[in-house]
């Protein structure tokens, strides 16, 4: 189980490090359709000035490296928050019973 977890996390990190920098930068499906159909009314994100906004790390100039680093942080933070949230749910549930 521990080994499976580690392998899967490493695969996730490898994907954001090696594949994500080469991902398509075209607008996503909704972005394209909203532009074509005239409802592209999206406003600036409230946290657009955040240090990791748009999947790049502030101060890292190399675009590919910036994406890879932001992605790695995202994978690890998502794992931590996800596992933490489910741990809370399980603890709350067991205490109920």
């Amino acid at each position, binding site marked *: *189980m521990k080994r*499976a*977890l580690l392998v*899967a*996390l490493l*695969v*996730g*990190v490898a*994907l*954001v490090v090696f*594949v*994500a920098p080469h*991902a*398509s*930068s*075209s*607008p*996503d*499906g*909704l*972005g*394209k*359709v*909203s532009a*074509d*159909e*005239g*409802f592209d*009314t*999206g*406003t*600036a*994100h*409230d*946290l*657009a000035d*955040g240090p*990791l906004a*748009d*999947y790049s790390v502030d101060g890292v100039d190399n675009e590919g490296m910036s*994406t890879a680093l*932001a992605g790695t*942080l*995202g*994978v*690890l*933070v*998502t*794992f*931590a*928050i*996800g*596992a*933490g*949230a*489910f*741990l809370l*749910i*399980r603890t709350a*549930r067991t205490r109920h019973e």
Partner: protein
Amino acid sequence: MHVPDGFFDGATSAGGAVVSAGALAVAARRATDELGERLAPLAGLVAAFIFALQMLNFPVVGGASGHLLGGALAAVLVGPWTAMLCVAVVLGVQAVLFADGGLSAYGINVLLIAIVPAAVGWVIFRIVRRLLPSTDPAVVTASGIAAFVSVPVAAAVFSVMYAIGGAVNLSFGAVLAAMIGTHVFIGIGEALITGAVVGAVMATRPDLVYGARDVEPTSRGLVNA
């Protein structure tokens, strides 16, 4: 499919948040039945993996790109209720840390990207499983078909919501046709990625796949020691 701020009026955004919060509350109660002991690490892992896959935009026709939604994939791996929570965590991290998906649209995004694809994906997965023999390859095939269907359905739900509370008054038919027209192709990518991931996990740790619990290990010819 991440909806930014400014696409929906306040009432619809709030409505989306209420519906999503209700669904996630139910999901939190049901999730423990799905995974029990293994819940926390496995679910965290699935969330992390979907985060990674959502960064991999692939090009589709007409100058658009798409990326995995992941609800169907997560539903097959950890069960539909856990799946909704996993993707909701991904969306939260994306909105707060990466400025992807509007904060006011978080509820709508949870509905469109977490709840609908996981629910639709799971229902289609079960239906296809019932039509096929109970084997590992059938689990992979059913995952791919479920993933494919989940994307245009989410696009259709977006279109309905846009008709209810979109910022611009447009014909429902035009939005629906454009959304489905693009997202059918994104669905193909969703199906291929989902099939590949489920296939890889089935080949190595089939015991970890929630949607394959009813497959007799003897059908694998060789029982994994």
